[in-house]
């Protein structure tokens, strides 16, 4: 048999049929659903008199709109409340499991899938959300789709897809102490650009990737979409299986044994080839900070805000000028001199228990600067509970961080957590687009411990030699 990549094995196992031009009807094992991108899909289904083919292959949760303050008070915004109510009604009508807002299992859709054991290696997983790429950390083919496609999957359990190309991103060497998966992925995006992965599925390989924890791999795969890729993946190994084992929706008994055996056959065969390979040395990765309005506008914390005059062409110069104007930054300013107003630790990129443990270990015994407002938003109700059992909430609160309920929160500011115009935020999320965290708000993407250090000092610092 021909040598295959991880991607090719999963793709081939899910082909239902192929059109003459290669367009493929691909079987979907699991779908995740949230309140923002699903109402029109359920409506379309109803209007056409169709029913979900496999309601038990779908899991739903409200996350984008939910308040992260006291939930007993309900949702102040009637439009948000209606969207969440609509999700619950639609799921009830269709027989789809939904974790309601007051369920301890509620959380960001890309946090709860893995947490519940709903996400498994070798699966095809979709969700009406671009960061579905997160689930690729388990060696699944997971990607975001639009609302019409959500409806398509509900009705048919399949999707029409053109086969993407494959890209290997190999990261070897040794990461400096205090550098993390977040810094690796930001450095990758800085290197290949925000459209560098367009048309590709990325497989991350190399010693650095395999040394990452499952949480780190999720952070990495999460931001594959910021590199333009359709999906990102990491081959499953023993770490993957032990993370999944015993989770509520994971296979058990005989099925578990069969599944693990199949997962061992998933990694890319030696001799298989990719359409493209990119290499990165871990030694070159400094803690990263974005300075602009696109995730590719990024540099090491020891670097400087770029000078548009030094840009190679007209278009790059214009884009840089525009970004600097929006961000209120001067060319050639050292990154460590950028002062911040807010700190957001959360989002499907960095809100898992490991992120919070690490962040808390740096917050311990320190104080958030007077000029800074900082908050921590756990990725799920269960992450929150676990953190509280470990006393992390007390550490954060003693340091002056707010401790919130689970949800997307200020990652996209659809609920009440919003940046004011001109405010500058160090954020552990994944997008620094104009207005993403609030109209006129300015976002700098960083790792959780870089965010803690910035909160304490009131400006960015090089975490590698921080106290």
């Amino acid at each position, binding site marked *: 048999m021909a040598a295959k990549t991880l991607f090719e094995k999963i793709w081939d*196992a899910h082909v*239902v*049929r192929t*059109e*003459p*031009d290669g*367009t493929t*009807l691909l*079987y979907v*094992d699991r779908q995740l659903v949230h309140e*923002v*991108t699903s109402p*029109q899909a359920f*409506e379309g289904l109803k209007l*056409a008199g*169709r029913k979900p*083919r*496999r*309601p*038990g*292959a*779908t*899991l739903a949760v409200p996350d*984008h709109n939910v308040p992260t303050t006291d939930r007993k008070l309900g949702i102040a915004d009637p439009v948000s409340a209606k*969207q969440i109510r*609509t999700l619950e009604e639609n799921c*009830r009508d269709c*027989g789809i*499991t939904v974790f309601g807002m007051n369920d301890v299992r509620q959380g960001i859709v890309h946090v709860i899938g893995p947490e519940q054991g709903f996400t498994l290696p070798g*699966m095809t997983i979709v969700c*009406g*959300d*671009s960061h579905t790429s997160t689930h690729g950390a388990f060696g699944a083919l997971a990607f975001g*789709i*639009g609302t*019409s*496609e959500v409806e*398509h999957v509900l*009705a*048919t*359990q*399949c999707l*029409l897809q*053109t086969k993407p190309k494959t890209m290997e991103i190999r990261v070897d060497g040794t990461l400096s102490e205090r550098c993390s998966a977040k810094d690796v992925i930001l450095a990758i995006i800085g290197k290949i650009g*925000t*459209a560098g992965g*367009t048309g590709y599925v990325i497989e991350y390989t190399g010693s650095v990737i395999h040394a990452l924890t499952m949480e780190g791999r999720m952070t990495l795969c999460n931001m594959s979409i910021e590199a*333009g890729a359709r999906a990102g993946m990491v081959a499953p190994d023993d770490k993957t299986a032990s993370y999944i084992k015993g989770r509520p929706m994971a296979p058990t008994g005989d*099925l578990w044994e*069969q*599944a693990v055996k*199949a997962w061992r056959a998933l990694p890319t065969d030696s001799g298989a080839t990719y359409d493209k390979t990119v290499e990165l040395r871990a030694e070159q990765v400094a803690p990263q900070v974005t300075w602009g309005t696109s995730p590719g506008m990024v540099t090491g914390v020891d670097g400087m805000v770029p000078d548009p005059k030094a840009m190679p062409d007209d278009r790059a110069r214009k*884009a840089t000028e525009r970004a600097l104007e929006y961000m209120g930054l001067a060319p050639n300013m050292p990154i460590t001199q950028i002062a911040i107003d807010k700190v957001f630790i959360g989002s499907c990129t960095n809100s898992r228990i490991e992120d919070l443990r690490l962040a808390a270990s740096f917050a311990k015994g320190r104080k958030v600067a007077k000029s800074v407002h900082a908050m921590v938003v756990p990725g799920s109700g269960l992450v929150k509970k676990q953190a509280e059992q470990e006393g992390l909430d007390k550490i954060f609160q003693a340091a002056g961080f707010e401790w919130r309920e689970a949800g997307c929160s200020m990652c996209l*500011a*659809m609920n009440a957590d919003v940046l004011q115009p001109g405010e500058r935020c160090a954020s552990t999320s994944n*997008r620094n*687009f*104009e207005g*993403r965290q609030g*109209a006129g708000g300015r976002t700098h993407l960083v790792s959780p411990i870089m965010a803690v250090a910035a909160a304490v000092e009131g400006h960015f610092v090089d975490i590698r030699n921080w106290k």
Partner: protein
Amino acid sequence: MQPFTTHTGLVAPLDRVNVDTDQIIPKQFLKTIKRTGLREGLFYDWRKRKDGSPDPDFFLNQPRYQRATILLTRDNFGCGSSREHAPWALLDQGFRCVIAPSYADIFYNNCFQNGILPVVLKTDEVQALFKGVSKEGYTLTVNLDAQTVTTPDGATYRFDIDPFRKDCLYKGLDAIGLSLQHDSAIAAYEKRRSSEAPWLFTDLAAR
């Protein structure tokens, strides 16, 4: 879905790279449970100046582009969030076609689901169209069958498109209806696969 065959329309230029879907339609418009009425959210933050008044420099605020149906823009259009509200808003404003050197994957897909044709032309061809559009009343003719874009002075640029997608858009086909015609193939797949990999078929009971 409205079929797309041949379309002649007024062109509006958006001379920016990496236009993301947060910009095409900001989050406050995503709370709707409908597909229509999204026009007022289209490029919402770019339509206004800092003080909230309409920005006369932004193309959508200029009378000459009010009836535009073809959006001309730059690389990596539609990156970021998967929100289909982006093509819905473009459609609601009257756009049937976008022309750019490249698109983000999910946005590109979403266009086809809504009867919008995303045309990919070479960077220098797009540049030539940007030159042309400086003339008021600049129109283009987009012929899906021939896969061409033709300028008022007769220059013609060819574009590529997957045959299957082209056919669906040309005929305005309902993709779900098409896939449902393969119901027996799907059922056969499920039967085979559930014996090979039974752990993938332990469905959740609705709770």
